[in-house]
Each structure stands twice: as structure tokens, then as C-alpha cells.
């Protein structure tokens, strides 16, 4: 039972961080129908940048963290302006592969600047373990879940009440109509990329504050795709619900299946879920099913 509780709590909080990263995907997909496959590399790059600010430059948290956010905003703007905007209205193959090219490029930057490839972030949260009903859980996990929830709340409020948020939702709904209303669609695209980079960065920092910065963060970013697929590509609610599901199945599967299967089965579960969802219900739990016309 204690084991069960422990898996439950770690799974939930890691799942929340996955959901946060996958929001970075959903934001871009909803507004501009671009599939951002460079998500894992964005997570990696922003985690390393945080490392650079906090450890290498030695900035305190109150200065370093805003700098990371500014960096993520800038990164999103650059990507949208120089890689995606020239490709507006190109076939979907180009849109997907351009993000793959970006992924390659970002990985090069990371290798270039931080060639030692494994390091730890300074401690962001207290690590004294706390006891919940017999289970001993590191406090970090609770913090990660709480921060993720707060950011979800902020984003939801933003999309509901802020002018820009409403404009972004409208763009997702119908680009042509939005353009006719005088909303600059290209600016919306660029905004959505900036937002996406920021949430991916925060998700990445949360994950790497637990597990350290490794090249496995790319895989974490890819695991976020299983959240996206399970929840449905264009659904915020889907991402928030599917994130904990993936996190839970990962931690339970890792905990209970490892004795029967090979070690490391944990890392493969999200990918198996992707395949299963694809075969059974490709548009996910809450995704909009697209009906095509010829």
C-alpha cells in the first residue's frame, strides 16, 4: 500500500510536468496547425540555459529565472519568424520536417555550448521527504505538481479573459474569419510560439530539477507527445487529463512490471501507449475528429 501511494504521487506530479510540456505543443498546433517535433530539444535547451544562468553565471534565482523566461520568449519569436513564417501554407510534410531540422540545430547548439552533457540544476525546492499516509515522498514532487497546476490556472484564465487569449482561440477556430476582423494572424502565430517555448521551458526546469539535466530530456519531450496524442491534439483539457494518466501508467508500469519484463520498461510505456491509441482511437480522448472533403 505504501508502495502504491508512492507510485501514485510521483506518477501524478511527473504527469503534471509532462502535461505542461505538452501544452507547449497544443498551443502551437491550435493556432497554426504546425506540429512542433522540436519540443524535446526546446526542453533540453531551456534546461541547459537555466543551468547556465544559475550555476555558470551564478545569478540568484530572482534574476536567473526571469532571464530564462525572456530567453524562451526570444527563442519562440526567432523560431517562428525565421523558420516557420516563410513556410506558411506549405504542405504538412514541410512543416513537420522543418521542426525536425530545428531539432537537429538546437541539439547542435547544446552540444556546442555544454559538451559534458550531464549535470544537475541547483536545488530549487526543499528536499526533506514528507509522509503521506505511510508513503515517503520527496517534497520536490509536490512542488512540481503545485507549480504545474498554478500555470494551468493562469493559462486558462488568460485564454478565457485576456484579449490576446481570445484572439488566439479565435485564430485556432477560423483563420480567415479572424483575418477579416483585423486581427494580425502572423502576430498570433508568433505569440503562440513564444508561449509554447515558455511553458516547455518551465516544464523542462521542473523535470530536470528532479532528475538532473541529461540528454534524456529529449526523450521526455517526446513522451509529452504521448500526452498530446492521448488527450487529443487540439484540447487543453485533454492535455491536463492525459498528462497524469501517462505519468501514472509510467510509474505504476515501471514499479510493477519491471520484475516481469526487462529493466527500463518505464521509459517505453508512453511510446507503447502512442501505438495503442493510434490503432484504437487516433484522435485521442478529447480531440476533434476531422472529416475530410475532397
Amino acid at each position: 500500500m505504501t508502495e502504491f501511494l508512492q507510485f501514485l504521487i510521483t506518477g501524478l506530479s511527473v504527469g503534471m510536468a509532462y502535461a505542461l510540456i505538452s501544452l507547449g505543443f497544443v498551443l502551437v498546433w491550435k493556432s497554426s496547425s504546425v506540429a512542433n517535433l522540436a519540443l524535446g530539444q526546446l526542453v533540453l535547451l531551456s534546461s541547459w540555459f537555466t543551468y547556465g544562468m544559475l550555476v555558470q553565471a551564478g545569478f540568484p534565482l530572482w534574476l536567473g529565472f526571469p532571464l530564462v523566461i525572456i530567453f524562451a520568449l526570444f527563442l519562440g519569436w526567432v523560431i517562428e519568424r525565421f523558420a516557420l513564417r516563410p513556410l506558411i501554407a506549405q504542405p504538412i510534410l514541410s512543416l513537420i520536417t522543418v521542426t525536425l531540422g530545428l531539432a537537429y540545430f538546437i541539439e547542435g547548439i547544446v552540444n556546442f555550448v555544454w559538451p559534458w552533457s550531464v549535470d544537475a540544476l541547483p536545488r530549487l525546492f526543499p528536499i526533506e521527504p514528507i509522509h503521506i499516509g505511510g508513503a515517503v515522498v520527496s517534497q520536490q514532487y509536490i512542488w512540481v505538481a503545485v507549480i504545474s497546476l498554478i500555470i494551468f490556472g493562469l493559462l486558462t484564465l488568460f485564454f478565457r479573459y485576456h484579449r490576446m487569449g481570445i484572439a488566439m482561440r479565435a485564430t485556432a477556430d477560423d483563420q480567415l474569419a479572424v483575418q477579416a476582423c483585423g486581427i494580425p494572424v502572423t502576430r498570433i502565430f508568433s505569440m503562440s510560439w513564444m508561449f509554447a517555448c515558455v511553458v516547455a521551458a518551465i516544464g523542462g526546469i521542473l523535470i530536470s530539477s528532479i532528475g538532473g539535466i541529461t540528454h534524456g530530456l529529449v526523450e521526455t519531450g517526446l513522451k509529452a507527445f504521448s500526452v498530446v496524442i492521448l488527450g487529443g491534439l487540439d484540447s487543453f483539457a485533454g492535455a491536463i487529463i492525459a498528462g497524469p494518466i501517462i505519468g501514472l501508467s509510467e510509474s505504476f508500469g515501471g514499479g510493477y512490471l519491471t520484475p516481469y519484463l526487462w529493466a527500463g520498461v518505464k521509459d517505453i510505456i508512453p511510446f507503447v501507449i502512442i501505438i495503442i491509441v493510434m490503432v484504437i482511437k487516433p484522435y485521442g480522448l478529447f480531440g476533434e475528429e476531422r472529416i475530410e472533403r475532397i
Partner: protein
Amino acid sequence: MSQPCGTRNYKYSEDMAILRTKTHWVLFVGLLVLLFTAPLYFSNYWLGVCNLIGITLIAAIGLNILVGYCGQLSIGHAGFIAVGAYTTAILTNRLELPFLVGLICAGLVAGFIGLIFGMPSVRVKGFYLAITTIASQFIIIWVINHWSLTGGFLGIKVPYASIGGLVFRSESSQFYLIMIIAALCTFFAKNLARTKVGRAFVAIRDNDLAAQVMGVNLFYYKMLAFFIGCFFAGIAGALLAHWIGFLNTEQFSLTESILYIGMIIIGGLGTTLGPILGVVFIRVLQQLLTVEFAPFLEKSFTMLPAGFASGVTPMIFGLVIVLFLILEPRGIAHRWALFKAAYRLWPFSY
């Protein structure tokens, strides 16, 4: 297709011929002679590069059939190459079967694994398919890493290729083996595109619903595309295994899969010439960057950061892929076609 002035067709067979003028034949025979005498004037080092190019070409042709002709985006190609490589490694090393059996089985096994992971393509496409294939890559590599039969993280040794008593030990003998298979694959791909199957692939790529309405069996042809593409990947993997002599999963990473997509895009999707140009471009660039250029710069400028050599290659590759997509999405093959047309029509460009 534009032909040189004065080329007329009197029979259907003439109309269908790939090589149609005397100049074509002269150039073609000249190319073959040049290709198969290459070991005479290349050093061992550059022969090794040529072998890598040949192996990559076989895999890229398969990917081009899948992505370029049939429009099914697959980002797990390195995984399928790994399946082929490990199949032949297990058959020839653990069971000591002959090389040819290993080669054919590698293609077939990779093809069948491709069928399994290609199954979702019947219902989904575009981004969904891309994600499925990425997932398949991770699952394949994970299984290889953990299965005792494959040697896991320690890797597995592969004996030299041999047919009958002939053992392909030196770079030049392997060059002939690889180039003959690569030439056969190119010939197959060129002709496949002109058959009923090839036309069905193109119809599916352009609009799969319209193709279905016109009577193209989507399930059959998508599965066929996956099978052919992954079969080629398996063959390439088998050759790679026998060429390197040692396998571990580091050689089949996701970045390698992305690089394959980059190659066929840079070369030109859906053309026969495309994969050849793209593969030569990327592999030669890779060789120059990692072996010649980066160490040279690192030696001459000591203040460069330590990650320069390992970081600059992916950066340039990523940049090249993005730039090609933005500036010339139809690849080098399209530029070459434009050049040929301009050359033929010169000086009257209409």
C-alpha cells in the same frame, strides 16, 4: 518530360525507354565504367566513404518510396535499419548461416516489422504517423538493447560478408558488393515509379481520399509502401552490419532517422535522382565537417569551446535542412532539372 529536339517515338517501347538517345547511352555506360573502376583511383579512406554512401543510398531509396512517392512520413527509418542489421548479425553470428540468407532475411524481417508499425497509417496520416514512427523507433531500439539475443548494450560482432568461398574483406571488394546492390535498388525504384503500383503510390500521396474513391485499395498500397521501404532499410542495415563488423544501438539513433528525412528532402522528394544527390551531399558534408574541417579549426584556434567539433556538425545539418525547406523545397534534383532544361533550350529560352 522534355526530350532533346528531334527525338521521335515510333513504338511504345521507345516511348517507355529510360535511356532514349545515343548520348544517354554513352553517358550511362561511362558512368557505370567510372563507378566500377573507382577502387583503382580512390584511396582506401575515400572508398570507405563511398561504401557508406552506397549503404545509405539503399536505405534512402526505400525511404523515398515511402515518403516521396507514397507520402507516408516515417521518422523511424534508423530503427528499421537496425532491425535488418541485427537480424543478419544474429543469423550469421549466432546461427552461422551464410551471408545471402542473412541479407534476404534482414530485408524480410525489417519489412514485416515495418508492416506492424505501419498499420496505423491506414487510419492516420501527417503528424500522427510521424509520431507513431518515432514511437516505433524507440520501441525497436529498446527491445534490441534489452534482449539477450541481440547482445544488448554490449553490442554484437558480425563476420565479413561471403558468397560461396568469396569473402568480402577489403574495402574495394565490399565496394563492388554494395555498389551492385545499390545500382539494382536504384533500377528497381526507377521502374517502380512507372508501374501501376508507383502510380497508385503517387495518387495516395497527392490525396488519399480521392485515390480511394477512384478505386485504389488504400490498405494494400500503404502496407506495400511500408513493406518496400522497410525491406530496403533492412537490406541497407544488413550491408552496414557486415561492413562495420560490430553493432550497437548508438548507430541507429533518432538523429540518424531525422538525417535520412533530411537527405531525401535535400535531394528532392519523389524523384530517382533525389536520394542519390541528397545522400552524396549529406555524407560528403558530414565527412568533411567531422574529419577534416572541425578538427582543423579546433587545432588552429585553441580558444574555441570544447564542444565545437561535436556541436558544429548537427548545427550545420539542421541549418541546411531548414534552409532547403524554405528556399528550395523540391531539392537539388529540381535545380538539376531546371539546369538541364535551360541547357537544352539555350539560347532561346521558350
